[in-house]
């Protein structure tokens, strides 16, 4: 299936979802739906580095918060733009600010992507486990920096008051919901493109056997840096609209552990070897948690996610997609269908294993 | 001292689908030193690994007699086999590089029976290999090839073995060190009255201390020499040996 068709199909699905929520008419669906879509982007982003290359990122919350606080920073500058006066520089500032959210998303993505590149450069020559520990450390360093940065509200947090109404979409949350649908399509399309491209093969060889990959001419360090940058950027883009969605941002919420947990649990449960895995995992786990927050405490929420993660990792290492594939391969094995001899276009989806 | 011997009957072994050992029968009587000769890639190491349970044989019997008691080794784990008193000096020595000479030697004596006479074994090792005594607190990884070979031999002796298997002691050693290593094996064998099976490709060196020998080519025992002389002056052996 060509990429434009793929994008068109998901655009239609997104539009249909938006209209259905519009018809049911209450804001809760948009608020809950936004979070699930956000997790799809986050899980897909994590999987590009974790699933395709086999490098585990424990600091997804850090990259998410980088995007969120880029939004807070740009919003705060926009609020104070009058202090710059109206001539020369002031006029210029008036032109730029207040920055529309889609631009903030792009800026958030660039900031998080650069930090991903930096962390990768520092640690990717070492064993994979050092990168995992470095991302953990990064998230805490970033949180400490934000806590001590009063301009963006520091530990008190910052208030973001978006316009309550917006043309075409009506309530602001519906505009953010539409933006997040676009982000989901961007994430899914880029993950699928990577998978089928030369880059995807390179990532798979790094996951399977880095030594053999180098011998075949794959520039492993350069590819790993590309993966951390793309993964970081997508996470930053997922976080950028968060301040406008939540209204009040403090370090504890932006750096919340549930982002780190879900970013790993969803691809692991869904399946890590193709773009479908994180999507399935995010939709299942995301909606489960949205339903749960209405009924049980957020602590129980994390308990469900934690237990599911442990269960799937032990019982179904290749996730739901892996289970379906295994079942499909068994079924097609005993029904004699003609297996094509031409090589399959994309790496066959048995899950390889990460470097320790 | 009751007898300790080793018997292999009709042993076959394979790595995945590649057959490496074909119907090998070998005998090492008590107190004997037997050489398993052949250039690399003919299955010497694989046969040693079958005896030690590292590579499970596809078919055949492997029986070890330890102080008069018979044991069927096939199916036992490596650590169980070693615990009977069958020590192996592995190819490439496999020392613990980040631990000292003394710690490597103490690890060799982990077996219950060996812990009883650690003191004598340690003194004898330091006597036989004075260099090890000098370097007792040096990290094994920082020692030269020859010294590492001595330590690997000494470590196997710390187990108070009844049967000693040695897999290519000459590997990676400069020729002058190989003869010194072979002499050391002879000295240790006599002191402990060991039964020794040595896989070695260095034909002449091995025959200096071997009572008997087998030549293995492509996983088959091609020739069994009942004495060192018979093996030494046999053109057939040289032909087999160089795989002409």
């Amino acid at each position, binding site marked *: 299936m060509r990429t434009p068709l793929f994008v068109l199909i998901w655009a239609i699905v997104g539009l249909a979802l938006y209209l259905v929520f519009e018809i049911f008419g209450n804001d809760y669906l948009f608020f809950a739906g936004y979070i699930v879509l956000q997790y799809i982007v986050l899980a897909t982003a994590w999987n590009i580095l*974790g699933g395709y290359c*086999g490098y*585990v990122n*424990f600091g997804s919350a850090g990259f998410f918060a980088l995007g969120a606080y880029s939004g807070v920073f740009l919003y705060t500058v926009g609020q104070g733009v009058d202090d710059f006066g109206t001539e020369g520089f002031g006029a210029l500032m008036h032109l730029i600010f207040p920055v529309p959210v889609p631009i903030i998303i792009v800026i958030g993505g660039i900031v998080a992507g650069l930090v991903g590149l930096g962390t990768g450069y*520092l*640690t990717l020559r*070492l064993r994979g*486990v050092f990168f*995992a*520990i*470095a991302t*953990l*450390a990064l998230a*805490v*360093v970033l949180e*400490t*920096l934000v*806590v*001590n940065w009063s301009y963006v509200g520091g530990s008190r947090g910052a208030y973001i008051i978006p316009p309550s109404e917006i043309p075409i979409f009506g309530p602001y949350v519906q505009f953010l919901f539409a933006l997040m649908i676009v982000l989901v399509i961007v994430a899914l399309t880029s993950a699928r493109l990577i998978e089928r491209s030369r880059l995807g093969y390179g990532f798979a060889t790094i996951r399977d056997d880095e030594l053999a990959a180098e011998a075949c001419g794959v520039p492993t360090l350069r590819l790993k840096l590309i993966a951390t940058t793309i993964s970081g950027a997508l996470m930053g883009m997922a976080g950028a609209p968060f301040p406008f969605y939540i209204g009040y941002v403090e370090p504890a919420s932006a750096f919340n*552990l549930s982002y780190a947990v879900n970013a*790993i*649990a969803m691809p*692991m449960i869904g399946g890590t070897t193709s773009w479908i895995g994180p999507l399935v995992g995010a939709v299942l786990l995301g909606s489960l948690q949205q339903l749960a927050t209405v009924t049980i405490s957020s*602590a*129980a929420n*994390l*308990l469900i*996610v*934690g*237990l599911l*993660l*442990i269960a799937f*990792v*032990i019982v179904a*290492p290749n996730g739901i997609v892996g289970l379906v594939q295994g079942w499909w391969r068994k079924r097609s094995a005993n029904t004699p269908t003609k297996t094509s001899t031409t090589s399959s276009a994309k790496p066959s989806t048995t899950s390889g*294993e*990460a470097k*320790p | 001292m009751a007898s300790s011997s080793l018997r292999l009957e009709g042993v076959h072994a394979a790595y995945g689908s590649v057959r490496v050992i074909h119907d090998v029968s070998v005998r090492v009587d008590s107190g004997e030193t037997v050489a398993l000769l052949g250039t690399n890639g003919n299955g010497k190491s694989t046969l040693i690994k079958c005896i*030690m349970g*590292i590579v499970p044989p596809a078919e055949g019997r492997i029986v070890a007699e330890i102080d008069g008691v018979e044991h069927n080794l096939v199916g036992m*784990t*490596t*650590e*169980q086999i*070693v615990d009977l008193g069958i*020590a*192996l000096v*592995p190819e490439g020595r*496999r*020392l*613990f*590089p*980040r*631990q000292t000479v003394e*710690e490597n030697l*103490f*690890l060799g004596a*982990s077996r219950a029976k060996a*812990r009883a006479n650690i003191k004598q074994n340690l003194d004898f090792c330091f006597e036989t290999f004075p260099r090890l005594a000098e370097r007792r607190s040096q990290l094994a990884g920082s020692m030269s090839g020859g010294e590492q070979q001595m330590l690997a031999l000494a*470590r196997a002796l710390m187990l108070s073995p009844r049967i000693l298997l040695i897999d290519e002691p000459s590997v990676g050693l400069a020729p002058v060190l190989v003869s010194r290593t072979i002499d050391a094996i002879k000295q240790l064998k006599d002191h402990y009255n060991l039964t020794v099976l040595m896989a070695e490709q260095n034909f002449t060196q091995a025959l200096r201390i071997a009572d008997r020998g087998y030549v293995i080519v492509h996983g088959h025992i091609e020739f069994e020499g009942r004495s060192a002389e018979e093996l030494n002056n046999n053109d057939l052996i040289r032909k087999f040996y160089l795989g002409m």
Partner: protein
Amino acid sequence: MELELLLNALVAGLLLGGFYAAVTLGISVSFGILDIVNIAHPAFIILGSYVAYIISSKFGIDPIVVAIVMLPFFYALGSAIYQIYYVSFERRGQEALRGLAFFFGLLFVTEVLLILVFGVDYRYVEAVYIGPTLHLGILEFPLRMLVPALVSIAMFCCLQLYLSKTFTGRAIMAVSQDPLALRLMAVDPTRIKRVAFSISIATAALAGAFLIIIQPVVPSVGRDYIGIIFAICVLGGLGSLPGTLIAALLLGIIESLTSIYIGPSWAPAVAFGVLLLTLAVRPSGLLGR
């Protein structure tokens, strides 16, 4: 006056470092020596704190004594967890990605269970040495920091002796270097790894008791320590207990000086700044391989 402030900051740093050493000991064994990335170790430390809290508040026994009594139970917990880890991951050679996720899940399940059982209000213990401070000239040694630090150093010495002087101890140091060679010493590597991992979880009982003595505890406090213990383990050099102890004391001092001269809110960033620097400049750490 300035000198006194500095000296006491150094003392406070050393005592804090003593505590950090105890918290890191478990990871130094499981990650440093066994190459098992047990990211859930802090959860077991918090478990140790709550066990100390329940028993000492119910029966009035000193928390450290409680921890020592509980050592066998934590040891058993450790071997159970290792058995699951070995069967589902290590044996299948999938311990990298899957093993990390397993421990990550374990970290949250433990924390959340504690929240569900104990709620989120702070818990603390009473002990005779919490409160008074020992004065040596101008130096001040708050006992609630001094006692844990001393017991922690005692713990280090015992474990170091065990690892270097006993057969099992030497095997533990050897197993990650060459498991097959260990089999040739008539020693089963899996049993050795189980013993070592169980010891690492047992140390969490004592570390947990020290934690609740030093500060009131809520289930989520463990997460703040993930970074610090890995930072110290890497900084000290993987697989080296003396390296871990030195790195812990060093980090304690740096953090103590930072919070006094720059500001307490910057302290958490210190550990990670040091970690990122170490990974970039000298990944083998101070005394590491």
